[in-house]
């Protein structure tokens, strides 16, 4: 049986309930895991998976990653604790440019660079699979970590 046919049968059987259909869509079609690598200031390399629509902050929370103090305001653009630094190529490739409000918060971050973003504002999509970001130390002190 071809995959196409299988999909047809499954989606037809689910069509009675929109909820089911949605569920099917999200588990089969869109849920291809998207891999992200976090390079921490202390040298740790952490690879985690998220799905389309997740922010980098979601990825860290959903995977229970232990990043000190990360995401203090819970993604509401009122702190800069989810600061990440991207390669300029990745930075330019992101679909959304940072808003004024995001830049305002980044201006208070330690180790600010031209390719800094807030993790809560980077939303995953398939083409970002394999993204690598640097997570600068939360604290403004090289002795820490």
């Amino acid at each position, binding site marked *: 049986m071809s995959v196409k046919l299988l999909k047809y049968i499954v989606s037809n059987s689910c069509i009675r309930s929109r909820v089911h259909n949605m569920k099917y869509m999200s588990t089969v079609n869109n849920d291809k895991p998207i891999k992200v690598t976090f390079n921490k200031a202390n040298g740790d390399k952490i690879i985690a998976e998220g799905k389309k629509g997740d922010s980098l902050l979601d990825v860290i929370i959903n995977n229970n990653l232990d990043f000190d103090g990360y995401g*203090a305001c819970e993604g509401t653009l009122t*702190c800069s604790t989810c600061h990440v630094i991207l390669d300029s190529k990745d930075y330019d490739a992101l679909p959304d440019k940072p808003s004024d409000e995001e830049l305002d918060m980044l*201006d*208070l971050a330690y180790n*600010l660079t031209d390719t800094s973003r807030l993790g809560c504002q980077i939303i995953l999509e398939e083409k970002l699979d394999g993204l690598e970001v640097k997570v600068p130390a*939360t604290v403004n*002190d090289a002795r820490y970590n």
Partner: protein
Amino acid sequence: MRWRYLSHSIRKYSKDANGFQVGIVGAGPAGFYCAQQLLKKIPGCQIDIYERLPVPFGLVRYGVAPDHPEVKNVINTFTKTASNENIRFIGNVSLGCHITLAQLKHSYNAVVLAYGADEDRKLNIAGENVSNVVSATKFIGWYNGLPADKNIKVDLDVEHAVIVGQGNVALDVARILLSPVDELRKTDITEYSLEALTQSKVKKVTLVGRRGPLQVAFTIKELREMLKLPGVSTHFFENQMNDIDKVINDLPRPRKRLMQLMYDASQKTEVRNKLFDILFLRTPISILGTSKIEGIELAVNHLEGERAVVTDEKYTLKCELAFRSIGYRSVQADPDIPFDKMSSTVPQSTGVYSVGWLSSGPVGVILSTMSNAFQAATLIGQHFDKGLLGERKPGYDYISKILEDKGIITVDWNGWMKIDKVEVERGIKHGKPREKIVDIDEMLQIGGILK
């Protein structure tokens, strides 16, 4: 011998209680962030957090503006930390009043002072004591329901208010005074201050600073909010923003973006119903008026480098209400605290540590406090690893007896949860996230324990 070695290893590496006792004074962000990090650095340590008020969270509850609820999301993390079985919250206990530093040192391997900086700096000029000259800190305490400030006198039946100082506290006060009251109704601002703000006639707020535009202390988010306030136009005095555009490009990014925003705002000429004025290069010399403020006499300054230098030229600003917002200072809560009087801070020493504003001075956003608290926790972890804090200590067993003897009613985390529940329920009636209880006795009736 073998048993002793074994028990030492268990104490050091086990996740279970290792007998290491930490006493933190102050349940604000610095205290909580320090506790959070200590749980990681010294697994199994017991942490007792003392708070002068019956309720936790310090400036997150009493300083953060009611229209900034997102900033208060850190409370969720603190609540998670507090739910750890090795953390004990002891509310309504004051260092220097109910307990002493010597008693804390006797009870704990490490004492962490996290009681912040709650004294506001005075202008120290003639007339400062006439009525309607108000401390911005107390005004913030008033609208946020800080028990000590619930009865301060401020007459808002006036048109023009002046705020001396150009930091984020000054902008918070200006924003609360100029915001449409309906915007505040949905916040956790106290009902009595909402009532007073509804009656307010304030139409113009002037922010006065000693130095120039390049030296302002407020941050860009807070200024952007002012520029977006409905019905309020922002003005700058006497072309003080001229020529700023010539230096903008040479500034580091954060200053550059802030200056660009200010410069763009200064080029707009629209006039709306209410006015927000920014005045640079003025130092207050005296408050005018005999019983009530009628104005402020200012000296005109010029800059020498980054420093403001007073000239002979004078400038009078008429106003009927003034706030001083020129910074905070920490106090020495107990005579034994190794307090640096010059900087009003407490330096780190083995066994007695400081975090937050008491450690760094009263500047910076929550990120700076977090960073500072994490560093102190790391230092305590190092001292622990080196065995510098090894002695066996009685912890809360000792302090609780003192409190019991004195008949002090305390509030534990469970007690706070009861108070929290009542506040949230009262908030529902007014369509707000909570209605804060402002009376300490009432808090104690709901959440207090008397042994």
